[in-house]
């Protein structure tokens, strides 16, 4: 401890001072609730009768493993993540590239692509619920122009989740587009000018300059889209309430249903904790894998003299 130089001490102090507001607000409004939630998950806390709460150990967690609806919620959430994350990120990137360059009217299109985000998920979900209707819904009216018979969409167990996926990709792409755009501002202009001298075509510039330059932003966007997709809730609540027959129930919706609607706080908290735990484990695993790769590289460098 004594070995810390005066300079490092100053840096530590500065760093913590910059972190201070975040630490204060983060502790009070995030960490304290999480710890409380953690404690609740080992109790039978029933919202309507808090005074009779007892510790029940791992009972809530054990119950979860035999809860068929919870299983369904996990499968649905995974399906949502697998479909939405790649599509949404790719669409967002394409949109950002389309409106990145300065050209006449690009502001209008930027607005158009961002419109669903501005309209907010609540409203968009409400509108799509109407669009998806079997009778009189826009999608079925369009299909009928091509002679396709009316589809159930949200009222069909097989299609409902995919319908929600489609709407989500479309609604959320503008959000990620904005972040991509902020990232694209940072791509150095000199690089493009140099490429112009080499007479590189647009595709080469995209692949060799733009994409590598925004790789960190891309990583960021993928992570937040992934996290957002795991937490899918609003659209389910508004469009289907988890139905038909639980075919669109997701983990966070189930947390809400159990913990808030059915007042079973203990059980709901247990789901939240398990959900977080799985994510922590996954990121540790990823960290571990990265470390492993690093070690292996160093080992190779030392033993094989590096390539």
């Amino acid at each position, binding site marked *: 401890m004594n070995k810390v130089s005066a300079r490092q001490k100053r840096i530590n102090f500065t760093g913590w001072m910059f972190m201070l507001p975040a*630490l204060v607000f983060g*502790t009070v409004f995030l*960490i*304290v609730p*999480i*710890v*409380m939630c953690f*404690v*609740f998950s080992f109790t*039978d806390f*029933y*919202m*309507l*009768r*808090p*005074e*009779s*709460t007892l510790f029940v150990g791992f009972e809530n967690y054990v119950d979860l493993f035999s*809860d068929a*609806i919870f299983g369904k919620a996990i499968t649905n959430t995974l399906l949502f993540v697998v479909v939405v994350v790649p599509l949404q990120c790719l669409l967002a990137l394409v949109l950002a590239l389309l409106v990145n360059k300065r050209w006449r009217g690009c502001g209008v299109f930027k607005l158009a692509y961002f419109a669903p985000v501005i309209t907010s998920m609540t409203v968009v979900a409400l509108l799509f619920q109407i669009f998806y*209707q*079997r*009778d*009189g*819904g826009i999608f079925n009216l369009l299909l009928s122009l091509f002679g396709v018979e009316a589809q*159930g969409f949200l*009222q*069909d*167990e*097989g299609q409902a989740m995919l319908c929600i996926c489609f709407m989500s990709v479309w609604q959320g792409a503008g959000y990620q587009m904005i972040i991509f755009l902020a990232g694209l501002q940072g791509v150095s202009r000199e690089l493009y000018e140099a490429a112009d001298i080499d007479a590189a075509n647009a595709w080469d510039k995209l692949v060799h300059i733009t994409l590598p330059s925004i790789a960190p932003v891309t990583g960021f966007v993928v992570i937040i889209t992934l996290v957002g997709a795991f937490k899918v809730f609003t659209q389910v*609540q508004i469009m289907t*309430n*988890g*139905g*038909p*027959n*639980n075919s669109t129930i997701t983990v966070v919706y189930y947390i809400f249903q159990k913990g*808030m*609607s*059915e*007042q*079973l*706080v203990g*059980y709901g908290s247990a789901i939240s904790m398990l959900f977080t735990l799985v994510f922590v484990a996954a990121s540790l695993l990823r960290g571990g894998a990265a470390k492993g790769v690093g070690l292996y590289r160093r080992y190779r460098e030392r033993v094989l003299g590096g390539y």
Partner: protein
Amino acid sequence: MKKFLAVICALALGAGCMLFAACGGGSTAGSGEFLGLEEGEEFVTDEEIALTFTRPTGNDAQEAWWSETIAAFNEKYEGRIRVSETTVTRGNSREYEQRISIWAASDSLPDVLYVDGPFISNYANSGVLIPIDNYIYEGYTDGFLEYVNEQNTYNDRLYALSIVDSTVVLFYNKDVLADENVTVPTELEGAWTWDELKTTAEELTARVGSRKRYGLQIAGDAGEWLSYVFTPLWEEGVISSDGLTTTGYLNGDAGIDAGVYLRSLVDDGAVYASATSSDFSAESPAASMALMGTQNISEFFELGDEMCDWGVTFYPASEDGSISAPCGGWTLGITNDCSEGKRVAASEFIKYLTSAESCESCARATSSPPSRTALYDTMPEYSDPSNEYYEIFSIIKEQIVTCAQLRPKTVGYEVFSTEMSKAIKDILTSSNYGSRDSIRTRLTTAATTIDASIEQIKIY
């Protein structure tokens, strides 16, 4: 760094436990001893008692009645009791009940609470509401409809009192039915059965010019409506008498018959699956008839000429001609966050609101059936055939007095009504439930879910 993290964790844990401990408190009154005021006894107090009261926001007519009545109460009890009310948008998806839950969890319930009747079992079981028979003198409940008292009772103790009630009736568009030469039953004995209702609805479904017209609207609030309006179709009941098991009832043979019947309403074109709850009351209505609650009547009156010329007839009867009409409405209870010193005052407030005079003015202002039996013989709209509205209210009266059926009494009403409504909605609208077998499966899933959830609720 580690030290720092440890401090954070300790702080967080400490705060967590503190909050958790703070959740305790609140007491349930011991039974037996009478603490309230006897009939005719004046309420006296040394200092003014402030009471808080919360209810969901109603329509214009209801709002007007409430603010008038509470102002009158505050004036009458000036210097003794002062009630301040908070109204909360009811929203859908049970937002009002969610707020009650979160208030219960944080000991911040108002003193007096307006709750929907079927939630009494749950609130009584968990202690959100306290029994009020210690505060209401004996005989006070005698004047009320028997089934309303039954709804407000849990384990033989009274928890709430009602001002007005509600029931489900069949509304119809007079012009359309006259055009199609359909005569509507006006006597209880001749009430349509479910099958007759379906046949009539099918006949009324047509294309008029560029507009679609269909027979029957059944849409309503997403949370519980479908379970409320169709529970009587489950002729052998939807839940065991102890209110804990639905398997074998909800998905029993009678239940599956009910499901098949509901599905056939859509398949045969009597009901339009994507309808909204205003298809009947719209300026150019799409629905010719509608199963709706009596709470809609005051809105219909408000709409006046903007709406069709409408009439009311009985809720459909079962094959043997008997009717079990869904009934039960909102009630007033005292919460356990109301301190002991305020409870007598709270009971005074409730007695004031449920007095014969107040029931009558509420029934008139909000066009709802009163909760007191005697009023059906004195209020002209219910008793005087020459009254302009007798045609409407006499039917409601007959239904309420002779064939009321309460919503199920269960501590799991929340999950019961939600899951049953979801199942009915799926059966009505989903492409996956065309066959009897699939309907059986769907109802079984609902029953299993409900039973599992009820099992998680402790009976205290």
